[in-house]
C-alpha cells in the first residue's frame, strides 16, 4: 500500500521530520504526556520520558475547564493549577531544558484554546518557540476554526497538530490530515482521555481512513495504557500517545524512575511489533 502524498509545497517541520525519520526506519512512535507544573521538579519527568525511549513528549498546559479530559487529567490539571502552574511558569521551566537539543526529542504542548486566545495566538506561539517547543495540540480547536492559529503557528515555527475522531467524515478527515502539522492525532474512540480496558475497535477503522488520505505520521491517543494496547495500536498507526496512564501514576506519587519503568514495556511492545503498519 502506498500513502497519498501530502502537498510537497509545504515542507515538513522539525517535529514531523523527526517522527517521519523514526517511523521510516520502522520504529513504533511513543509520545508520553505530562501535565506541566504538576510537581515542583516536573521537568524531571521529561528526562525520564526521553530516557525511556520517547519519540516526542506532550506537555499539557493545565486549564481550569478541560472539557475533553477524563477524571485523571482533570485532577492533574486541578493539582497543577492549585500549585500555581501557569502557561508562563511552565514555559519558563521548559526554557531551562531548551527542548530538543537537550532531551533529544521534540516537545509538543497541548492545551485548550482559551489559553492561546488569552495571550493572543502570536504571543502564545512566540513564547512556545522561545521555550523550545516544536508542536501544539489544541483539542477544542477543530480544523474549521483553526485559520486564526495555523498561519501564526506556521510563522512562529510551531507545528499545529490537528485531531481526527472516529466521527469525522472522510472529506473532513482529508482536510484535517492535509492541514495538520507534525503528525495527525487520531482519537481512538468516542470519549474523553482516560485509561480503558482494551483498544477500541474504532481505532483501527479511523487509522485506516486517515491512511487513505495522508502519509503523515499518525499517533493514536486516548485510552492507551498497556503494552498490549500499544502493540494493537502499532498494527494500524505509527505510534501512540500515553497520557492518563502516566498521570494516574504521577498523581499516585510515582517519580521519574517509576515512570521510566512504566514506559519500558510499552517501548518494548512498540519495538517488537516491527511490521510496518498496514
Amino acid at each position: 500500500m502506498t500513502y497519498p502524498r501530502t502537498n510537497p509545497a509545504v515542507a515538513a517541520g522539525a517535529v514531523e521530520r523527526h517522527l517521519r525519520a523514526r517511523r521510516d526506519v520502522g520504529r513504533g512512535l511513543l509520545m508520553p504526556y505530562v501535565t506541566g507544573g504538576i510537581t515542583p521538579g516536573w521537568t524531571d519527568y521529561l528526562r525520564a520520558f526521553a530516557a525511556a525511549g520517547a519519540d516526542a513528549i506532550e506537555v499539557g498546559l493545565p486549564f481550569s475547564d478541560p472539557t475533553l479530559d477524563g477524571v485523571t487529567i482533570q485532577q492533574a490539571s486541578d493539582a497543577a493549577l492549585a500549585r500555581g502552574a501557569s502557561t508562563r511558569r511552565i514555559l519558563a521551566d521548559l526554557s531551562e531544558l531548551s527542548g530538543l537539543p537537550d532531551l533529544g526529542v521534540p516537545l509538543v504542548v497541548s492545551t485548550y484554546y482559551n489559553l492561546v486566545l488569552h495571550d493572543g495566538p502570536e504571543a502564545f506561539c512566540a513564547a512556545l518557540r522561545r521555550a523550545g517547543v516544536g508542536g501544539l495540540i489544541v483539542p477544542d480547536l477543530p480544523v474549521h476554526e483553526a485559520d486564526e492559529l495555523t498561519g501564526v503557528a506556521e510563522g512562529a515555527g510551531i507545528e499545529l497538530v490537528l485531531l481526527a475522531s472516529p466521527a469525522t467524515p472522510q472529506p473532513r478527515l482529508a482536510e484535517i490530515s492535509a492541514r495538520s502539522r507534525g503528525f495527525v492525532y487520531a482519537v481512538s474512540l468516542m470519549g474523553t482521555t482516560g485509561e480503558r480496558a482494551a483498544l477500541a475497535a474504532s481505532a483501527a477503522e479511523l487509522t485506516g481512513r486517515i491512511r487513505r488520505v495522508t502519509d503523515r505520521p499518525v499517533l493514536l491517543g486516548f485510552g492507551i495504557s498497556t503494552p498490549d494496547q500499544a502493540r494493537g495500536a502499532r498494527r494500524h498507526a505509527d505510534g501512540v500517545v500515553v497520557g492518563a496512564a502516566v498521570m494516574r501514576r504521577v498523581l499516585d506519587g510515582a517519580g521519574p524512575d517509576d515512570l521510566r519503568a512504566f514506559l519500558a514495556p510499552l517501548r518494548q511492545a512498540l519495538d517488537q511489533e516491527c511490521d510496518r503498519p498496514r
Partner: protein
Amino acid sequence: MREVPLRREPVPPDGVMGGPPARGRFGEYGGRYAPESLVEACREVGEAFREAWADPGFRGALARLLAVHAGRPTPLTPALRLSEELGVRLYLKREDLTHTGSHKINNVLGQALLATRMGRRRLIAETGAGQHGVATATAAALLGLEATVFMGERDIERQALNVFRMRMLGAEVVPVITGSRTLKDATSEAMRHWVGATGDSHYCIGSVVGPDPYPWMVRELQRVIGDEARAQCAAELRTGVPDHVVACVGGGSNAAGTFAGFADTPARLVGVEAEGGAGAARGRLGVLHGCRSLFLQDGDGQITQAHSIAAGLDYPGVGPEHAHLRDLGRARYVTVTDDEAVRAAVRLARTEGIVPALESAHALAWVIRAAGDGELPAGSTVLMTLSGRGDKDVSTLKELL
C-alpha cells in the same frame, strides 16, 4: 403618570438577531469550538434544526406543546402599583407562569421535539440550580425520552428539592465532583458525556451558549418570549413598542429570546447581569464550552468561578450573540448586586403580589435603580421579562430576610 415626548433612535441595520448566522458567528463571537468528536454531532443538530425550523409541521407541533403543555402565551402584566411608585410604566412578561416555572421550558420542549425527530432516545443536560434540569426531565417524560442531568455536587446539596423533582420525573441525576462542583463543571461533564453518546443522545444545552448551532437555536426557541411580548405591547401601548426592554442575563437565553422580538425596533435593550457573574459587562474574550465569547478569567487565562445569589446567573460567561450586541451597541449590559436583587424581589412581592426568581429580580433591580437616578425618564415604558418564579429561591431568601 406624565407623558413624555417619544424619543426614537434609528433602527439598527437589518439582520441583527435574524436567521442562522454564517459559520455560527455573531461578529467575532460564537463558532463551533467543539472537540473534533463532537463536530459532526453539532453539525447534525444544526442541520436538523434548520430543517425543522423551516418545517411548518415541526413549528406547529412545538406551538401546540407550548400552548397545551407549557401554558403559552404567557400574559403581559402591567405592574400598576410599582409603576406608580417608580414613575415609569412597567410591564412584565410573565415567564414565571409557564409550566415548571421559568422560560427554560420553551427551549427544552423545542430541543426535545428535535431530538425525537432526529431519532434520539435520550436527552443530556447540565443544570445549576435545577431549573433547566427540571425542564429537561419534564420534556423527556412528556415525549417518552430518557434524561440524564449533570449537576455539580455542591448544587445537589443546595438544591435537594429540585434533585428530587428531577428523579420523580424519571431523570437520572449525575453528581459532578470535579472543579468547583457547580454549573460550569456540570456543563463540562455533560459535554464529556455527550462525546461518548452522540449516537443515541441529544445534548440539550440550557442557554444561548455552547457550540454552533446552540446559541442560535436556543435564541430561536426562546424568541417566542419576544414575539409574544411584541404583539402584546402593540395591543397595550400607545406607542406600540416600549422605550426599554430589559431582561436578566445568565447565559442569556431569556434576554436573547426577548431581545429577538425587539431587535428591529427603536427599543433600547438592556441585559442585566449579576455583579459576580458579569460575563458581558466584565468578561474577556475567550473560548469555553464550545464557543467564543466573553468570560470571566484570571490573569493567567483560567476561567474564574462566578458568584451570585441567583444560581441561574452563576455562570462565568455569556452567550456569543450578547457579546456581539454589546460590541454593536445594540444592547447594553449592566450589573446589579445580590443585595439590590433581594430588595427588588421583596418590593415586587409587596407591590404586585409576585415573588420573582432571584435571576429575574436582577432585571427589576436595574429598573428600580434606573427609574430612581433618571436613567429611565419619568413616563417611559419598560418591558421586563420576568424569567421565572421565586419558589425555588424562597429558602435562600428565608435565610437572608
